[in-house]
């Protein structure tokens, strides 16, 4: 059975249950009491009103039923779900409802199931890889054009200066390298080349950062410190080192002056250990 027809059946069941329960409600609200004196005159009018009310109600229920049957989320609004909505038991467990999803996350931590999100991350990575490849291809196109231009220049230089045309393979190689060098340098100074390099570098960085994001998601799931956390820790260490250096400097005596000598290093340093700071 397909999911669609499943949903439709569930919707019909629910609609029928809803209609029955509402009819029962109406009958309970407006009971018919035959044989009671003084009320017979008004009974016809009441019955007429009741019939009108019932028709309207049923019409409304019909519309609701139609709406419910159309909706793909009908499965979520089952009679069981409605019952659970008002059930105190629903609120007593931990991590069982969307309301306390945050609490569940705190109590249980990330679950492997959450790694489903990895799909989206991987998709983004794929898109970034594709962008990087596109930028790389654009850069290669510029280079290919430059090489073609260089080859044309080289060919015409060899053809037009037949008298000075290199006679050896080395001469030819040197000529080619000179022409190629000049052409490539010319191209490297063009806006198109600079922009292509910028884009290539940027998309490569973006791709790498997305890789880092994925790696960090795994790190978090497996209780491994992330790159970002390591960077933050290292930043703290760098700052502490700065402070330590400043303190050491503040506590150090200033060098004496006017004792200028050119001391050869051999005597003193042979026995002297380097003055290393506390860190290595």
């Amino acid at each position: 059975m397909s999911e669609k027809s499943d949903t439709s059946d569930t919707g019909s069941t629910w609609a029928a249950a809803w209609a029955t329960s509402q009819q029962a409600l109406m009958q309970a609200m407006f009971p018919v009491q035959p044989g009671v004196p003084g009320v017979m005159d008004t009974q016809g009018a009441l019955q007429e009103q009741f019939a009108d009310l019932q028709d309207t109600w049923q019409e409304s229920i019909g519309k609701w039923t139609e709406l419910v049957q159309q909706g793909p989320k009908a499965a979520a609004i089952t009679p069981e779900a409605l019952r659970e909505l008002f059930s105190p038991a629903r609120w007593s467990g931990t991590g069982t409802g969307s309301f306390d999803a945050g609490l569940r996350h705190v109590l249980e931590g990330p679950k492997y199931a959450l790694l489903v999100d990895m799909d989206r991350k991987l998709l983004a990575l794929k898109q970034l890889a594709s962008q990087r490849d596109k930028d790389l291809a654009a850069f290669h196109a510029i280079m290919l054009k430059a090489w073609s231009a260089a080859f044309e220049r080289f060919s015409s230089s060899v053809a037009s200066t037949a008298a000075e045309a290199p006679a050896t393979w080395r001469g030819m190689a040197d000529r080619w390298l000179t022409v190629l060098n000049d052409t490539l340098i010319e191209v490297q100074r063009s806006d198109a080349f600079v922009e292509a390099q910028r884009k290539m570098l940027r998309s490569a960085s973006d791709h790498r950062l997305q890789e880092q994001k994925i790696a960090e998601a795994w790190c978090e799931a497996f209780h491994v410190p992330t790159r970002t956390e390591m960077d933050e820790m290292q930043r703290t260490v760098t700052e502490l080192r700065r402070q330590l250096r400043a303190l050491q400097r503040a506590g150090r005596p200033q060098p004496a002056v006017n004792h200028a000598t050119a001391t050869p290093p051999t005597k003193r340093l042979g026995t002297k250990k380097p003055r290393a700071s506390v860190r290595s």
Partner: protein
Amino acid sequence: MPTAKKTAAAQALAEFSDFNLKMARGQQMLQRLKDEDIQIATADKEVVFRQDKVTLYRYQATAKPSLKVPVLVAYGQIGRYTMTDLQEDRSMLRNLLALGVDVYAVDWGNPTRSDRWLTFEDYVDGYLNECVEFICHEHGLPAINLLGICEGGVFSLCYAALYPDRIKNLILTITPVDFHQDQAEGRANHGLLNLWTRGLGADDIGRLIDANGNLPGELMSYVFAQMTPGATLSKYNVGLLDTFDDEKKLLNFLRMEKWIADRPHHPGEAAKQLLVNLYKNNELVRGEFQLAGRTVDLADIKVPVLNVFAKDDHIIPPKTTQALRAAVGTRDYTEIGLDGGHVGVFVSGKSQGILGKGIHDWLRKRD
């Protein structure tokens, strides 16, 4: 038979034969070489101070002292200080030692993600200051000579401006000051790093640092490789082949490669300051660069300044560093422009006799 008189076919055959011989020779050389043959930064030195990942070295004297005040060499974070002592015959440090200079050098270490929060303040007010204080204390001196290289030159400028009493003479090499003067000479191959950085938004840089923690060394290697595309493309074929003529050339090549491969990550927060505040916003020369709430005013540098630059520096184009003349508050300002490129100043055969001697002679007059 001279090459010119050969037929085209014979010439091609001779060339093919030479090529194969060279390849075979190169293969033999590479088989013989071991890792210990391509050690770099081997000048004798001792660790005299350590803090966190920072190490201060003092180099073993190799000549009679000629200066009273020692020199502290501070490299940047984009490469490593080992470039100053690449090999025995290509070493600024050894040249200075041979001239009787007492040399210290600071090694910032190998930053990892745990260093992402380090800022310019940590390097200037913290580590560099600690090193200077240590040397002052050891020598009983109120001030020392500071030699900054590249970004280390920017650290040194900041330090000299904020702690003027601790610096006797300031030497800068290949140091950017006005980050927007990269095209002042209109040379297309100059200043790609400046252009590249200006093309990025501050948020692009922020995302880059967030994603990687640091400014990845690999990214900087890529940017540098782009600056000289021809050389990059030919390095491991034509370039390497050229070294197969001579084992010494091959060793130079491999040592240089070793240095290039050892490119550290740049601590993230400090990288943001470098790229956003300096490269993009040009705050240093504008007198707007803030360190821990204090403005770095280059006009506060009143000590003698020697500014060494490379005339064909495509990374720090000459005008970006020559802007220092108008920015500092001293009249004792000297420039030395050397032929060659950014790293060539330190490692080229031609510069070996000039750089160390130029620095020594300048210091000696101000010792």
